[in-house]
Structures are given as structure tokens and as C-alpha cells.
């Protein structure tokens, strides 16, 4: 269906436009993080520790400038050209070590979104491949493949994943020598947990697509099965894959936050929203409650994931041939 029509159908649900706008903003901020006028997210500054939200447009310290320029000379140059030496400090407060919360949110967003995207892609690859083969080949293969999916559904993959990640942490050095960094393990493991629903959905779709005339025509013309699967059936799956991709990213990001809370996610000094939220929780004591350390990361997660869910629901309704009447 044409883009204009799809957009019109998407807008029928309340809040879709807001969701898309919010997501665009989040992605833009995450992408543009190196050129934004923010303090360095990782360098501790004990003199500024523990302050609540108090935005100030100040001149950055010399150490901050040096750190920023180190890894990304081009971005550093752009930032200097745009904003000079100024930076927006303390907009969301600082944490116990004096690191700026807004800067950590923006840079953490980069990591969280990246993990979300890559892990979702992993799960899409596995799920679509599995479902495509099962649905197209049919018969015994289909039965076996789907039985495996049913079995894996019942297995507590979450627990096994936690076990695997925890036990692998001990041997990070040995794995790194093989080129398997902790991030790669994270992507693979998170993706491996989330592909089951995609496989089921894709298989259902392929089962009905298989009976269409274009498949019979392709076969009559002498196309091989693999060719038909990849070149003819697969493009028709993009709609439904998009819907479930949009709905899987929030689940994956929640899982990453979960793992980070347990200490199994992204490693320090890296920062992600999950790490920020768990840090915020850790410092919650009766004596001093730095509410901004938990509220802002929580809001970031809440708004982004809600927007993704809203977009996914809207896409699902827009592509549903019956047309949902209940927004």
C-alpha cells in the first residue's frame, strides 16, 4: 500500500504522531551525542557531586574539552564550531561522582538503542529464517521446527541466559582473544531469547502466502525453492516483520535493563539506561534521596518504550486487513 495511505491509517490511532515525533527526537539526540554541548559523561567531578537538577549554560573545564576531543576529532571540531566552549551542565542533576546525568542519559541512550536494534535484528534474522523454512517446506520439517519452538517457549530461557552470561563473565579475557567481546555476547544472547514469537508469526504468514498464484507461477517457470522463498515470499513479509520488530525492540531494551540491574549487561565504564536506572536505585537511602537519579532514567525508558509500543500497535492495526475498530 502506498506510503500516504499507510500514514493516514497510522494516524487514526491517538498518539501515533506524538510517538513518532518522540522516537525521532530520541534517535536524533542519540546520534548527535558527540556534537551536543554536554559535559563528559564519564569523568567524575567531585566538586559537583550530588546536585539536583540545576541547568547552567557554562564554560566547560579544560579536562572535559581534552577528553571530548580525544576519541572523535571531527565531532569535537563541529561541536567547537557550533557551541564554542560552552556546555549545558546539570540540567538533570549530577550523580554521586559528579557526572552529569543528562550527558549520561544521552550517551546511555546511544548504547541502549544500539543494543535494542542489534539484538532485535538478531532475533528477526533467526525468527524469520526459521518461520520461513518451516512455513514454506511444510510437512514433517514444519512439525519438527514448530515443536522445537513450542519446547523453547516452555523453557525458562531467561534463567538460562542469566546463567550463561554470568558464567561467561569470568572468562571475558579468553573470549576477547577470540574476538567475542562482551557486547557481542549480549547481542547474541538477547536476540536468542526473543525470536520465538517472530518465528510463529512468520510461519503463519508464509503458510498462507504459499498458496498464492505467484508462487505457483514461479514454480511453473522453473524457479528453485530457495529462490522462491527469498525472492518472492520474503518481500511480502516486510509488513508483519516491521510490526513485530517495532514491538520486539522495547522487550529487548527492557531485558537489557534487567540484565544491567543484575550486573550482567553493558560493562562499566560504558553507560546505558539500564545501568543508570540501577545506579539510581542503589544510591536510594533514607539519608539522602537523589530522586533525579532514578526519575530521569526511568522517564527516558518509559517514554521511549511507550512510544515504540504505540507505534507498533498502530502499525499492526494499520496493516490488519480487518481493520481494528477499537483504538
Amino acid at each position: 500500500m502506498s506510503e500516504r495511505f499507510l500514514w493516514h491509517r497510522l494516524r487514526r490511532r491517538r498518539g501515533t504522531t506524538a510517538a513518532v515525533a518522540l522516537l525521532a527526537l530520541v534517535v536524533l539526540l542519540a546520534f548527535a551525542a558527540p556534537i551536543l554541548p554536554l559535559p563528559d559523561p564519564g569523568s567524575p567531578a567531585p566538586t559537583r557531586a550530588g546536585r539536583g537538577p540545576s541547568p547552567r549554560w557554562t564554560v566547560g573545564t579544560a579536562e572535559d574539552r581534552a577528553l571530548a576531543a580525544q576519541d572523535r576529532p571531527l565531532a569535537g571540531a563541529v561541536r567547537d564550531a557550533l557551541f564554542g566552549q560552552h556546555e549545558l551542565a546539570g540540567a538533570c542533576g549530577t550523580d554521586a561522582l559528579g557526572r552529569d546525568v543528562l550527558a549520561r542519559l544521552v550517551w546511555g541512550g546511544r548504547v541502549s538503542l544500539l543494543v535494542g536494534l542489534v539484538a532485535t535484528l538478531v532475533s528477526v534474522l533467526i525468527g524469520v529464517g526459521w518461520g520461513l523454512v518451516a512455513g514454506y517446506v511444510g510437512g514433517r520439517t514444519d512439525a519438527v521446527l514448530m515443536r522445537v519452538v513450542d519446547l523453547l517457549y516452555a523453557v525458562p530461557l531467561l534463567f538460562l541466559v542469566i546463567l550463561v552470561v554470568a558464567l561467561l563473565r569470568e572468562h571475558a579475557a579468553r573470549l576477547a582473544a577470540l574476538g567475542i567481546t562482551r557486547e557481542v555476547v549480549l547481542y547474541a544472547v538477547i536476540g536468542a531469547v526473543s525470536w520465538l514469537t517472530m518465528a510463529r508469526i512468520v510461519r503463519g504468514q508464509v503458510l498462507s502466502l504459499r498458496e498464492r498464484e505467484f508462487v505457483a507461477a514461479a514454480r511453473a517457470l522453473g524457479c528453485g525453492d530457495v529462490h522462491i522463498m527469498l525472492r518472492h515470499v520474503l518481500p511480502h513479509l516486510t509488513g508483519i516483520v516491521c510490526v513485530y520488530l517495532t514491538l520486539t525492540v522495547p522487550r529487548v531494551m527492557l531485558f537489557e535493563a534487567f540484565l544491567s540491574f543484575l550486573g550482567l549487561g553493558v560493562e562499566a565504564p560504558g553507560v546505558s539506561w539500564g545501568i543508570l536506572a540501577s545506579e539510581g536505585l542503589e544510591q536510594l537511602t533514607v539519608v539522602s534521596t537523589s530522586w533525579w537519579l532514578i526519575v530521569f532514567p526511568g522517564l527516558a525508558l518509559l517514554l521511549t518504550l511507550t512510544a515504540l509500543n504505540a507505534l507498533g500497535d498502530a502499525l499492526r492495526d494499520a496493516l490488519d486487513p480487518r481493520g481494528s475498530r477499537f483504538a
Partner: protein
Amino acid sequence: MRLAVSRAGWAALVLLVVVTLSFALVRSLPGGPFDEQRALDPVIRANLMAAYDLDAPLPAQYGRYVLGLLHGDFGPSLRYRDYSVGQILAESLPISALLGTLALVIALVAGLAAGALAAARRGSWLDTVVMGAATAGIALPNFVLAGVLVLLFSFHWRLFPVAGWGSPAQLVLPSLALGLPFAASIARLFRAGLLESFGEDWIRTARAKGRSPSGVLWGHAARVALLPVVSYTGPAAAGILSGSLVVERVFAISGMGSHFVDSAFNADYNLALGVVIVYTALVSALNLLADLAYGLLDPRIEAP
């Protein structure tokens, strides 16, 4: 009856697969429960491994483990040297079970109430607020929710204790933190189901015969709208059990979840496997119950 038996058989198969998979996974990974900071003398290490049966070939270990399971013996804990896994599980399972049950009750009660309210007042601001809260509820990690609850109800308004387990007051916040995200999903499902059944003929007949709107909702529409909620109870229970990993840490509750996390970090194979098995058994039982309930609720499905 046949359905119940076949489901039970399936559950047994799942359990076997889980045991095998977890066992293989855990024993195939490098490292072990005795790789502590201080390197052990090789003779001592060998003795320890032999004492805990870790030096036999893997298939033999597996066979011994399964045999033990059939007798209800989960083996000794590799970390807590004086305890068997069975003892630790017996101590912590009731705690987790109580927490999980409370969370499930909260999820069902709050979810059904919110969903019914939103459906009955569809299109009004109440509907928007409730559904907005529900959409937010499924997007928030439960430890963030726990943190916010503690911030508000323990620190700001000193209503509930911060952590721990034992008094009724300490039950409230953890159950809320665990159950509310699932209440959100249940609210959404129930509302959608209610709205869909409102358009059906039998609802119109009931109204025409003079039943009150709430009577129609709860007496007629709810029976159909409950079906997706019942299907969701299985995954919800599984989610509650896995969510407890984090909530138990936040509130310092020594249930099965916190034992599992500790055992993962300590490479205490037996305890980790024990928790996974108990977890799988619980979830399978709940799924079976949910299936039976579904069959009972929907007259179009034959009785099992």
C-alpha cells in the same frame, strides 16, 4: 481427560528437556564452583571435585543427577557447604510463592477492574487516563517501578517499610512492584475483549431484557473477554517468577529468585539447576491450569 493426560505428558517432556539443556549448558561452560580468588592446591581441588561428584564423565554425572531428581534429591549446594539444595529450596519457595501469588492477585484484580472501567467509560477521560497508565505500565522495568514506589511510599510518605520480609506491611510494596506491570497488560487485554463483545448480539439481547449495564458487563461480556486474560495468565505467571529475580534483590527478600542470581554468580550448579527445575515445574502447572480454565470458560471448546 485425554487432553489433561497428554498435557501432563508434554509437561514432563518439557521438564526433561529443561533439565538436560540446563545441565549441558552449565557444565559445558568454563570455570567452576571452586575457582575462587585463591588458587586451590591441585590435590585439594581434586578431592573437592571427587567429593561433589564433579570429576566423573558428564553422562555419568547427568545420569546420577536425574536419578537423584526422581527421588526428590537435588544434590548438595556447592556454595553453602552445609546445606542441600532441597533444604534451600524448601526455605525459599514459600516466600517466593507468597510474593508471586500476591502479585498475581494484584495483577488480576487491578487489571480486570481497570479494564472494565475503561471499557465501560470508553472514550472518556477516565478511559484515556487508565489506558495511558496501562501503556506506560508495560514499558517500565519493574525495578524502576520498585524504586519509584520506595521513593514515594517509604521515603516521602512514610507508609511502608523499605525492605525485608516478615510483617504484612513488608508485603505491600514488593507485590505491587511485581504485579502492576502485569495488571497493565491484563487491563489492555480485558478492555479490548470487552469492547469486542459489546458489539455482539447476545449483549444486545441481555440489555433488551432489562439487565443493568454492569450486570451485562460482568454476567455476559466478561465471560468471553476473560478468555485472552486466562491465556495470558500462563505467561504472566512466568513473568512474575522471573521478575522476582530483580524485585527480591531490591527489597532484600531471600526468596528463590535472589538465590538463583547468587548461584549464577557463584557457579553453584546444583542450586541454579534446582531453581530452574522448580520454576519450570511451577510454570508448566500454571499453564496446564490456565488451559483447563480456558476450556471450562469457553463452551465452544470440548471439556478436557
